[in-house]
């Protein structure tokens, strides 16, 4: 049950993009086309999950025992940066078309707050689901949390990309063209997602 609540919470109630404001730059940047958005979501999902697990272990078995939790930021980002670069190199080889589409945004996953944000949140925040006492997530829960969060990222991204593709064919006033109307769209999406509040 707790896993289920973690999933619902991470995807809908505390959606990483629409409620937590993490990873907005690539969200705005690559959502112009549905295909790109889908690719990016996949990449982010993969990186977030991997990064969360690795950093969780790093924190749990190295930093905490040594009392070096102040090194979280710097060591986490190092791990993430290396991970992303690896994904980039591998993707370029395996799927050049996806690589082309994601263009400059792959390196930007490194600087995607979502990845570091989830990694840090998981090891610093207490959670409480379904009336359980506040506690830190264990490795399994952290992994589920990471996967669900990135699914929430993907959901918002894909919906948004669909909306933006539609908007591309609309006669949007000049001053609103591009990002302003995109931001207004996200704003209303965020408004809609507030409907889920209180579910978990």
């Amino acid at each position, binding site marked *: 049950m707790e896993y289920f609540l973690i999933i619902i919470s991470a995807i809908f109630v505390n959606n990483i993009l629409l409620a937590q404001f993490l990873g907005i730059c690539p969200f705005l940047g690559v959502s112009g086309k549905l295909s790109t958005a889908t690719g990016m979501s996949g990449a982010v999902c993969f990186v977030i999950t991997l990064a969360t697990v690795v950093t969780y272990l790093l924190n749990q078995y*190295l930093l905490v025992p*040594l*009392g*070096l939790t102040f*090194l979280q930021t*710097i*060591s986490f980002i*190092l*791990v993430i*940066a*290396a991970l992303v*670069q*690896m994904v980039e*190199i*591998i993707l*370029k*080889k*395996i799927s*050049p078309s996806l690589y082309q589409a994601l263009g400059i945004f792959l390196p930007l996953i490194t600087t995607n707050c979502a990845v570091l944000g989830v990694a840090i949140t998981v090891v610093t925040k207490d959670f409480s689901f379904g009336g359980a006492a506040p506690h830190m997530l264990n490795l399994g829960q952290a992994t589920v949390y990471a996967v669900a969060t990135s699914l929430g990222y993907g959901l918002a991204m894909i919906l948004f990309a669909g909306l933006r593709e539609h908007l591309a064919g609309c006669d949007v006033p000049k001053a609103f063209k591009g990002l302003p109307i995109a931001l207004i769209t996200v704003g209303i999406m965020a408004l809609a997602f507030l409907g889920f509040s209180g579910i978990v």
Partner: protein
Amino acid sequence: MTQTVIWTVAILAVLGFLLALILFWVARRFKVEEDPRIDEVEKVMPGANCGGCGFAGCRAFADSAVKAANMDNHYCPVGGDEVMQKVASILGFTVTAKAPQVAVVRCNGSCANRPVVNDYDGAASCRVKAALYSGDTLCSFGCLGCGDCVAACQFGALSMDPETGLPVVDAQKCTACGACVKACPRHIIELRNEGPRGMREVVRCVNKDKGPVARKACAAACIGCGLCMKTCQHGAITVADNLAYIDYTKCKLCRECEAVCPTGAIHGVNFPRELDKEAVKKRIADRKNKEAANG
């Protein structure tokens, strides 16, 4: 305390070392070869992605140019010679300079010259109108006035003149990409050499009807009388299908044709002074007389 510092340094150093090692290995294992010149060429392209070069966009152009044996089939009209020179130097080719061109509208059937005889009520599109019928005037060759060319120009170089109902080209903005040429269903727009200081001599008519029919349809129509052809000393003018055409590569801008055209279908643009028709006519007459005397 010092212990903390030591641990800090140790951990980060080891981490950095390990990561660098892994990265290096991955980079080697998954190496991809791509011609780096594609990126270089793309960088010097204008990036308008207008397709004026005949490729699907600037990158497609670059991709193809890199593979090409020479630059004959690759010319970016927007970037012009300057850009092509750069591309050629990247790829080690030579290019022959092309004279700068500009779009020219070859119709002068303004509302005043060409009476409207019916009331078009379909979609505001030259294409649709052309597919339907010969147009709302008696000229079945001239401009339809719905501005498809204006919509096609992504450089904002074309606009409809509300007074004449005809498109006008802003030569400053025109990049000679040719989009308007393709868009016009009546083939009214043509790309021509810009000419010295922008001076050009143009027959502003495409009507191929016989003289009287053309005349009835439009006061400014070319009636194919051939006076201009006879006058031109440089052989720049041909008349076919009742229509005169000036070959801009041969035209020497003497403006004699303009002076003799009975309907005023020939226009000189960007000349510093207005044409003194009588003076030119006199000059022609003198010359003819002399020739007659000699011959």
